[in-house]
């Protein structure tokens, strides 16, 4: 149909792209694999750096998408995209014709079971940062046997910057997430000690560094530079962790009631099939490679009709993903309506 733009993924980037395209007089169609819009934001509790509840970001977007009468297809997994951007193929073989495609297919969370040494899925009180967000949402951060934790360890870079699990990239947002979660635990249980184990603290966003400092000065979160090497259960049901404090150069052991693994962002599993069908390039990391890192980071090539928004190309935070939704929408609009790329 004329002016149809297929948007793969109904997370924040996809919704923002759809809203922009609708406003530009196009016919965006959001194709969402899950049974609801919102993507990963549905599962987060509060967002750094402002402690804004995720719902406060998500609900207005959902409301706007509904209000604008944007066509949304749920449970619609996209399996292929035409190299010329003139349509997509859905699981089951259905083809949807379009004049351009916005790939806003997001990321997958790293499967923490791949780091077997941490015992995720084996030891009860080893959880991921995503599990902890769910606990925060349910206002119930307790050990498996229902106790309030007296000590929590948070391990950074699980599935990020780790050649051993083929995740060489930095996932960017976990550092600040770890600091945020540490502070939230301290808020919830002032008696509970929280230790963050990190390689580097990468506080890239506005206000992040300040929060990091606040976590130490006001919240008394202890940050130890060192990666936990292995975890084992103790007889009394706690966890024993081996690590090294690399700032003082000494090995150490610590027991905790709960270990939170800050799982990184992986390229979505669907990237490969989309890349193969649409003749799109993937970077070494497995995320989509955009045309260039400056003026072309939402485009797939010079004159293509496939555009990228959000974490399909690299780990990003919510704000960055929203901005890319707008940017990709404009590029898509211009590719259909004529006019050279900017």
């Amino acid at each position, binding site marked *: 149909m004329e002016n149809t733009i297929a948007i793969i993924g109904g997370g924040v980037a996809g919704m923002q792209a759809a809203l922009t395209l609708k406003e530009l007089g196009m016919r965006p169609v959001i194709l969402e694999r899950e049974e609801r819009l919102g993507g990963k934001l549905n599962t987060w509790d509060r967002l750094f750096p402002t402690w804004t509840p995720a719902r406060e970001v998500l609900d207005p977007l959902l409301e706007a998408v509904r209000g604008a009468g944007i066509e949304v297809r749920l449970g619609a997994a996209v399996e292929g995209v035409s190299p010329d951007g003139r349509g997509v193929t859905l699981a089951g073989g259905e083809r949807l014709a379009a004049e351009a495609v916005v790939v806003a297919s997001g990321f997958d969370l790293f499967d923490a079971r*791949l780091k*077997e*040494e*941490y*015992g995720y*899925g*084996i*030891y009860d009180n080893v959880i991921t940062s995503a599990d902890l967000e769910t606990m925060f949402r349910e206002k119930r951060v307790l050990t498996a046997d229902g106790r309030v934790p007296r000590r929590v360890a948070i391990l950074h870079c699980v599935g990020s910057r780790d*050649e*051993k*699990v*083929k995740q060489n990239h930095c996932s960017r947002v976990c550092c600040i997430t770890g600091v945020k979660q540490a502070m939230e635990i301290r808020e919830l249980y002032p008696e509970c000690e929280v230790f963050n184990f990190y390689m580097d603290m990468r506080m890239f966003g506005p206000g992040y560094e300040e929060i990091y400092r606040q976590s130490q000065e006001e919240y008394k979160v202890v940050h130890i530079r060192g990666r936990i*090497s*292995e*975890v*084992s259960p103790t007889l009394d049901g706690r966890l024993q962790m*081996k690590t090294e404090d690399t700032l003082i150069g000494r090995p150490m052991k610590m027991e905790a009631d709960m270990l939170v693994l800050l799982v990184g962002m992986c390229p979505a599993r669907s990237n490969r099939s989309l890349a193969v069908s649409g003749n799109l390039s993937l970077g070494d990391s497995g995320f989509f490679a955009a045309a260039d890192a400056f003026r072309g980071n939402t485009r797939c090539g010079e004159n293509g009709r496939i555009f990228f928004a959000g974490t399909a190309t690299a780990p990003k935070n919510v704000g960055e993903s929203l901005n890319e939704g707008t940017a990709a929408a404009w590029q898509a609009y211009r590719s259909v309506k004529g006019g050279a790329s900017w």
Partner: protein
Amino acid sequence: MHTSDMNTHFDPFVIPFTLGVIYLFAVVVWRYVKWFAELPEADRRAFRHALFTVRSLKAVREVVEEALLHKSILRVNPLLWYMHLSFALGWFLLIVIGKFETSAYLKEAFNPPHVHVFFRYFYPEEPFRFHRGFNYAFLMDAVLLFILSGVALAWFKRLRASWLGMKKTTKHTRGDRMALAALWVVFPARLLAESATCGIHQTGDFLTHSTGMALAGMVGPDALRMMELPAWWIYSLALGMFFVAMPYSRYMHIFTEVPHIFLRHYGIRGGDKPGSADNFQIQACSRCGVCIDPCQLQSAAAMNDVQSVYFLRDRRYGLLTDPVADNCLMCGRCETRCPVHIDLNRLRLNSRTARAEKAVPLTDDRYAYLRGEDRSEGTGKVGYFAGCMTLLSAPVMTAMQRIFDAAGEEVWWADKAGGVCCGRPLKLSGETDAARRLMDYNKALFEKHGITTLVTSCPICLKVFREDYHLEGIEVIHHSQYFLRLLEAGRLKLKASGATLTYHDPCELGRGLGIYDEPRAVLARLGTLAEPKQTKKHALCCGGSVANFVLNSQQENRIATDAAAVYAATGAETLVTACPQCKSTFRRNSALPVSDLAEAVAAALEVPASAHRIPAAAGRTAAPAAS
């Protein structure tokens, strides 16, 4: 009788050949005497003791089968075998039959080697004048044709290695190229020279007579006369050049394979550190290149200069570099194929020792902190050593615990709370003396706790326990063997899932220790086993070998992805392995879910683990089955 001196059979053209032969034998004898003298006294004693035993006969048999008939190559590739056979057996026959022919004709047992080599020149009329019941000339022609067919194949192989079934053929050194060039000329030159002589005298048998007459017809009798002597000169020069180049080329293997076979049969193989016995092995390599194709560094990671053939070449000429010595998975796939049975892994390993010991001096206080350390837990006749890689795999540790509980085994846990490394990784890096300290520590620990059986989940640990620990009174077994025993004794009951499983043979467990059957016997009780295309002693390496110090993660992953595809192609639902290192490597590269044998067994336990979890001493005997 030719015009030359009939009594001494001399013509100046024999000089290059004769000098070459003298030089060659002087060098070969000097080398062998030197290498033998440098063998440790124990090896020399072993040699003397074994010399007049049946082992020598067995060695002779292998010399015939391998050095002459090349039976091992026949199994790998018949065309390649024919090529080698034509050179080895053909040349051997040419010398032997030539010698008989000469001695029979001259009626003397001994004469200088050049007489039979250039026999046709000195006695062109022989086939007609010499009445006998045995047609030597026919035989000599047949053998020459046999060799020439091999030469043709060799030329062909240089052009298109793949036509001889080899994906990659060997790259040569300068000595090799000289010898090779000479070798390629030798037999065609002999044909030309004999044809010229036979053409002039209208003698020769089916080959040399025909080519001689054809040649005479082509160039005429005068020209033929003019080219006869130059042709013999070329033949002699080619032979001389070959013999001089031979000690500096891969063709040194022709002779060295013989002492190598004898030493092997006598059990003299060299050790963890470089020694004189290594010389015989290193020079027994013919550089046939059979080791190249099975090497996954070549097939999956596009590395073409580190295979055993190049490693041996570099070591032979003192050109070995660390990147070559260190870039080997030590998976042993090439070793199983080596037609000469060279200890490729051992040689690679001991080439690392000299450098490693220089790099990290073994001071007295190194590992001093281990003294008196004992973090083991529990008591029992059965000890369990997880090893560092198993300790990093929580699911395997949990599975082992469940299996021990289900079998009601009382276990002494050697390293659950952290132990000392088995020493094999250090040994693989060349630090054999440092590794010995760790081994001594662990050995004392095992002996102190009075265990009679030591179970380990790690084939890397298992190999070093069996080969280097010399544990008296303690049987060391792999967990796969332990599981099978429990199953056979009825101490474990498994519920077969009926799932299709495929099994990856870990290198250290399979090729390293010959344990192929027990893991399969255990798996057969869990589901249907689907064998991959390459299996057992030809199984692929996962790529995560602790023996390789060069590969980066991407290269490791490429090897693993390649291998994982072979397992996925079986159509199995799960890839099971029996090594924590293989499992970890495959988990990040396999389309199939990967698990350790222990996990697969624990998941199939019929009785809940807790039912057996009651140590007799604890007195909690009430109604365990109810849980």
